[in-house]
């Protein structure tokens, strides 16, 4: 596989990472709509995508994630702030001078061109020497496994194939930066997981390409991304590696959006040795940011909650008692909905011979180190930006 070349011609100094890669930097980017800019769709975003990194912008619809991507592409002009690709400030540049590759949800293959012409489009537009074009087209189609379809029209291809061609079209220009805007959301679930693996393979083959990946699907983000930036209501909520966000979420929003979480309102005990929850004491590690008496949210992943009062190995544990309200069978696990003093607690327990039934009283336990405390003040915008 050939090494992709960066397309930013005005770079003044060598980038930090080896190879001709360029990252992306959002520098206080703010986007507003409306005649007087009264609707803020993206609020002072500070974020860096390192060269060669896959960063997923994860958030619900309307969170501003697609807007952020479109400021990099040049389709949206920020009201304030700068966007940099590599070391080049591209804020005022029109889209065609930014040197990016882009794939959108609805593929947008040119219907009047054959697959090969679609892939060649970017090369022709950039005045690539004519002799080079067939080779580059073949290479891009090879990379995405679509070489056999070069002579077809887009309408003769399935959705997954069209998406591969769209990817080939974006990669043919050897962009330093690849923008993927919900690229898999138009595909059905099975195709999607196949394409996810394919994208991961492509990124291994093109380690210098920085990828900004917009998605509302946490599985896609967790699978593919080196880091995830969580957006909600126009603001960056949290940013970190998938493991960090999953194991140590900084906000309630992150906890509930990345994976499933039990979120229980607790108060830090005066001796800071644990917390009070609904009149009972729980032993959990209290972080430095929390003073005695402070309100906090205890975040606990359902699969880390076990059945019974104590763990089998007899280690330290916290016990919760409650009543099962609902049981969902999920193949390998049962998801129990348990009401603990009116608070809903989810527990994913391995399948067992006797299925617990709704109405049963039950004891649950969890290890202190599996619980994460989130300060109550950090539910909205308090996340520190990475």
């Amino acid at each position, binding site marked *: 596989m050939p090494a992709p070349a960066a397309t930013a011609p005005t770079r003044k100094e060598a980038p930090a990472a080896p190879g001709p890669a360029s990252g992306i930097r959002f520098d206080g980017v703010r986007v507003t709509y409306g005649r007087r800019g009264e609707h803020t769709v993206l609020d002072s975003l500070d974020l860096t995508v390192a060269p060669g990194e896959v960063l997923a912008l994860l958030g619900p619809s309307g969170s501003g994630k697609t807007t952020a991507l479109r400021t990099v592409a040049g389709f949206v002009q920020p009201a304030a702030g700068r966007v940099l690709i590599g070391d080049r400030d591209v804020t005022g540049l029109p889209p065609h001078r930014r040197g990016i590759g882009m794939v959108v949800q609805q593929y947008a293959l040119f219907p*009047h061109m054959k697959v090969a012409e679609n892939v060649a489009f970017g090369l022709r537009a950039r005045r690539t020497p004519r002799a080079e074009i067939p080779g580059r087209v073949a290479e891009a189609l090879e990379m995405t496994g679509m070489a056999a379809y070069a002579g077809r029209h887009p*309408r003769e291809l399935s959705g997954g194939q069209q998406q591969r061609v769209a990817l080939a079209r974006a990669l043919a220009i050897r962009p330093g930066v690849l923008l993927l805007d919900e690229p898999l959301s138009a595909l059905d679930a099975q195709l999607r997981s196949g394409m996810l693996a394919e994208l991961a393979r492509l990124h291994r083959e093109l380690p210098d390409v920085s990828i900004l990946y917009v998605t509302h699907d946490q599985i896609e983000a967790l699978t593919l991304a080196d880091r995830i930036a969580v957006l909600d209501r126009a603001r960056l909520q949290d940013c970190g590696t998938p493991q960090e966000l999953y194991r140590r979420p900084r906000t309630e929003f992150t906890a509930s959006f990345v994976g499933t979480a039990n979120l229980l309102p607790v108060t830090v005990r005066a001796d800071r040795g644990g917390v009070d929850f609904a009149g009972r004491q729980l032993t959990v590690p209290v972080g430095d940011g929390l003073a005695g008496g402070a309100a906090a949210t205890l975040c606990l992943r359902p699969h880390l909650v076990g059945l019974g009062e104590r763990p089998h190995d007899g280690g330290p544990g916290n016990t919760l008692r409650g009543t099962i309200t609902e049981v969902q069978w999920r193949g390998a696990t049962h998801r129990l909905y348990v009401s603990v003093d009116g608070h809903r607690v989810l527990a994913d327990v391995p399948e067992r011979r006797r299925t617990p039934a709704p109405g049963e009283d039950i004891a649950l336990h969890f290890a202190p180190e599996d619980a994460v405390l989130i300060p109550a003040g950090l539910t909205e915008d308090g996340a520190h930006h990475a």
Partner: protein
Amino acid sequence: MLVPSKSARRAVHLLFFALFVPVFALPLLVIVAASFATGWSGALPSGATLAHYRDIAHGDALDALLTSVLTALAASLTALTAGTWAALAAEKRTRRTRRIIDALFLLPVAVPSVVVGLSLLVAFSRPPLLLNGTPQIVILAHTVLVTAFAYQSVTAALTRLDPAYEQCAAGLGARPVHVLWRVKLPLLLPSLTAAAGLCFALSMGELSATMMIYPPDWLPLPVQIFAATDRGSLFTGAALAVALMATTLLVLLGLSRLRTKASYR
């Protein structure tokens, strides 16, 4: 299609033919029959002769047909260019500007075409812009009258065009001109040919504005048809009308063939 039961569907079909045949088809068939007729004493023309066609083939009818075709070609091409240009330009403007442009292009449709003809005659009858008595004033009048339709069809097609195509093309490094020629116009081609056909047909049949302005050496076919029937040569008029109809249909057919080639989805 919207009617579920079989008998109801048959009734709807009957109603359609009951309205369509006498209002649309029959008059045209009668014209065709009249163009071959030797006499017309009963309800329908009778007899069979090619004499009328022989007459018009020797007269100046061929010139008039050529004049009509040339006028229609020039007018529809100019109108298509201007209309497409305006539609593309209006797309990038604010909503208010767009509405003003829409209204301006609607003006020639809203104003009776006789008035359009008269106003052009009055406006261009004095130097330095002396067009009165030239073929150009006829072409100009037709252009003014059909540009609105070109503008409207292209505007409608543009609003249906997914902006993702344009954006993807720009993202891939295509300059705006490249995007226009390689992506937007090819995607608009079906609508452009449809608009061209509409403009051509409208111009081929235009009479009222033309009557106000045509010079003696640039006499389009509709004017000649009117003149022929006006002086009582009904059969000649019918033969001329058939020639006009056939030519227009032929051009439209050719355009629609082009269109099927150009439609992708």
